[in-house]
């Protein structure tokens, strides 16, 4: 399975001669603001300002404890650090915690903190700081969502010594370390946390290689180098302070503008890259492509088994068989993404794929529907049973699904129509989209969920996830309500034996896939493009957020 990491682009046959010509012309005319990678020497140079352009929504709070979404994770990875990290193999490695032990019953964890680490406000990193962070995450006032859930089993903390902190759990949690590696559980200065939430949101204080200098809303977050930095993770490329003087973190929601800005040399790195621009960049020698799929769940369509027509497994299978995914992914993602047949991301070592279940087979789909009693067709060619049209309501969040994904849904809509499904796509803004889900007014939906480790399966497929929170939110959109799956996931979440854990998760995944609850599409895409003058940029494997600790500008 491909690991996240830097993929040097190699020239590809030009699928779009004109587009390439345009790019080439553009680059010729930009006067090559970026030097060719071979021109400079390979010794890192200090100094310079890196401009990063994010296509995500601007966070409303720079403290990822508050709420806890991916845009926050992206930017906070520059100034906050977690207790542990993952390496490229997915193995947990030390970061702010040097070492850790777990009791036999799995209910007590002791973390020994790294020596000599101070927050950028001068507060030392100690056990009390970790306690304060856990308290902060669990405080309802904070409004933490992701971090709060991740610490659901943590009943309390105590300072064993200045440098040792103990977590007491209510039940064993096999995913605790993976959870703690996420940026949403990063450790902040206890002093800083005591400030008002407004202040902390504007400039959280951590131990990272950079610190927040200023935040001009809707324009940019400026981060400057932390000259006293001492705590790189185990897989970092060097020690001591970062090379860059400054990072300017901008928000450019329009993907075309974002790419144009990179081409024009106005920014050094962009995220949320569209497949077609990746294809263009592949043929460019001034732009580098970085593919870092997000961990956790794959990108999939969840079929609402809680109500008709998808309460019938035959209809679910028929829908899945009627969708031509491979051709769509090939044309829309232009080789930048592979079709997935797993419930989990390809970066999850415990993921299980079942390619045979998801083949495009319209004949089989027809047979299944005929068998399920959807034998009539109306004048528009849609199947009808008892006077009811075979309709699939599919709300699409324009915030969460990139245009290529939305186009893929349109293609699914078109191919499913041949089998007799009427897919009703509705592009909605985030609030309306959530409202549709909350009202159970959907038959199919695609909702990303990023969490390190296979424990994401519990969130997505355990029947507890059907019960909505007071806000109406729930994670089990497929409304999988299978006691056996529940039992498997609960046990896997507590067990410490890795092999047994893997077997339980594999079993659970197979049951989910065999039940045709989901239609896996591909990994959650997470592509970056950057100028070749930017050296040493990489992603932190935990949730594939970029880090610029080792990065330097070769220009």
């Amino acid at each position, binding site marked *: 399975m491909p690991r996240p990491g830097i993929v040097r682009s190699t020239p590809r046959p030009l699928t779009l001669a004109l587009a390439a010509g345009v790019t080439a012309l553009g680059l010729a005319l930009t006067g090559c603001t970026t030097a060719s990678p071979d021109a400079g020497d390979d010794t890192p140079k200090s100094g310079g300002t890196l401009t990063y352009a994010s296509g995500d929504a601007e966070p409303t709070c720079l403290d990822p404890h508050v709420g806890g979404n991916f845009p926050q994770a992206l930017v906070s990875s520059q100034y906050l650090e977690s207790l542990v990290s993952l390496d490229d193999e997915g193995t947990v490695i030390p970061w702010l915690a040097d070492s850790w032990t777990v009791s036999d019953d799995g209910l007590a964890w002791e973390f020994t903190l790294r020596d000599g680490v101070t927050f950028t406000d001068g507060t030392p990193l100690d056990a009390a700081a970790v306690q304060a962070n856990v308290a902060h995450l669990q405080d309802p006032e904070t409004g933490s969502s992701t971090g709060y859930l991740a610490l659901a089993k943590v009943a309390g903390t105590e300072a064993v010594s200045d440098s040792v902190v103990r977590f007491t759990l209510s039940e064993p949690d096999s995913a605790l370390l993976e959870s703690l590696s996420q940026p949403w559980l990063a450790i902040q200065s206890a002093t800083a946390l005591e400030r008002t939430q407004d202040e902390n949101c504007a400039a959280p204080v951590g131990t990272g290689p950079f610190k927040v200098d200023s935040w001009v809303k809707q324009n940019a977050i400026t981060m400057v180098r932390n000259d006293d930095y001492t705590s790189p993770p185990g897989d970092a490329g060097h020690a001591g302070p970062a090379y860059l003087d400054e990072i300017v973190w901008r928000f450019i929601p329009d993907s075309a503008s974002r790419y*144009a800005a990179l081409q024009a040399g106005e920014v050094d790195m962009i995220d949320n890259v569209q497949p077609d621009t990746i*294809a263009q960049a592949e043929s460019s020698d001034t732009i580098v492509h970085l593919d870092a799929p997000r961990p956790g769940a794959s990108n999939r369509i969840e079929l609402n088994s809680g109500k008709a027509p998808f309460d019938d497994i035959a209809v679910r299978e028929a829908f899945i068989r009627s969708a031509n995914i491979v*051709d*769509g992914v090939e044309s829309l993602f232009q080789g930048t993404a592979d079709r997935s047949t797993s419930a989990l991301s390809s970066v999850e070592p415990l993921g299980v794929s079942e390619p045979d279940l998801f083949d495009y087979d319209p004949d089989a789909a027809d047979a299944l529907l005929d068998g399920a009693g959807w034998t009539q067709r109306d004048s528009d060619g849609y199947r009808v049973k008892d006077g009811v049209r075979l309709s699939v309501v599919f709300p699409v969040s*324009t915030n969460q699904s990139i245009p290529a994904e939305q186009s893929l849904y349109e293609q699914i809509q078109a191919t499913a129509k041949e089998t007799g499904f009427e897919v009703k796509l509705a*592009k909605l803004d985030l609030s309306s989209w959530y409202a549709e889900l909350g009202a159970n007014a959907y038959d199919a939906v695609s909702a990303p969920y990023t969490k390190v480790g296979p424990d994401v399966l519990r969130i997505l497929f355990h029947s507890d996830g059907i019960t909505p929170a007071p806000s109406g939110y729930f994670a089990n959109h497929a409304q999988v309500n299978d006691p056996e799956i529940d039992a498997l996931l609960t046990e896997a979440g507590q067990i410490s034996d890795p092999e047994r854990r893997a077997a339980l998760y594999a079993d659970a995944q197979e049951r989910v896939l065999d039940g045709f609850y989901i239609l896996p599409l591909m990994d959650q895409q997470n592509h970056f493009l950057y100028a070749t003058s930017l050296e040493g940029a990489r992603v932190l494997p935990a949730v594939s957020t970029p880090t610029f600790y080792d990065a330097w500008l070769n220009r």
Partner: protein
Amino acid sequence: MSELEIQAAVPRRTNVAGRRRPSLAEVLAALLALFLLTAAIAPRLLAPGDPLAIDPLSAFQAPSVAHWFGTDESGRDIYTRVIDGARDSLVIGVTATLIGLGLGVVLGTIAGTLGAAVDFTVNRFLEVLFAFPGLLLALLFILVFGPGPATAIVAVGLSTAPGYARIIRAQLIRVRSSAFVEAATVQGLSGRRILTRHVLPNTLSPLLVLGTLGIGQAIVWAAALSYLGLGAQPPAAEWGAMLSAGRTYITSAWWMSFYPGLFIVLTAVCATYIGRAIERRMRHA
């Protein structure tokens, strides 16, 4: 007299324009309008293909003989979609304009006829609406009623209504104080009869022009809402939605956004030329 004499002797722009043959631009606009109407009524006549038929393997093809305007990300023929989109776009433009004009007529008429107090109230109300720039009003409306094509149409209509109302009110007042209305009073016509026989017909006759000119702008605004993701739904081939989808691929497949955009512009330009031609003919007929 001298002034009249000059008017008679020197071919003046306004005099000649009324009688002259339609200009080249007007002929072109009329032909385009015919084309667009055909596209809206019988799209298969101009583009026999299926606008929704996908062909993933021939996606992103540049304009060619097979695909005049190229293909989009799902291999759909853009020419077919643009033709097919004429109906949606025109329906949006016309409906939104009708809503705007309708509201404008109602507001303008009650302001202009029901006495000073009503006029004052409606005027203040219009002033308030004017303080919401068009798209703001539309956004607010969409915020309340949720996004979607119908909401977008009503939102655009709503945001154009104050402008129409003001024009209609002014026209009403102008007509009401005109000499021919006074002449009708002298003839002994009742107020209501003057209103129905002279004031309203003369007030409303510019509506055709206003409406024609407005359709273009309504299409542009509706497209803006679609662009912001608040308008038409997939896979509808509405131009704004197509343009919005195509913008993503602007650096690699310019034709995806160029042609829908071109048709939006052409439609608006065509509407303007036709509206002006009608206006001139009405003024000089």
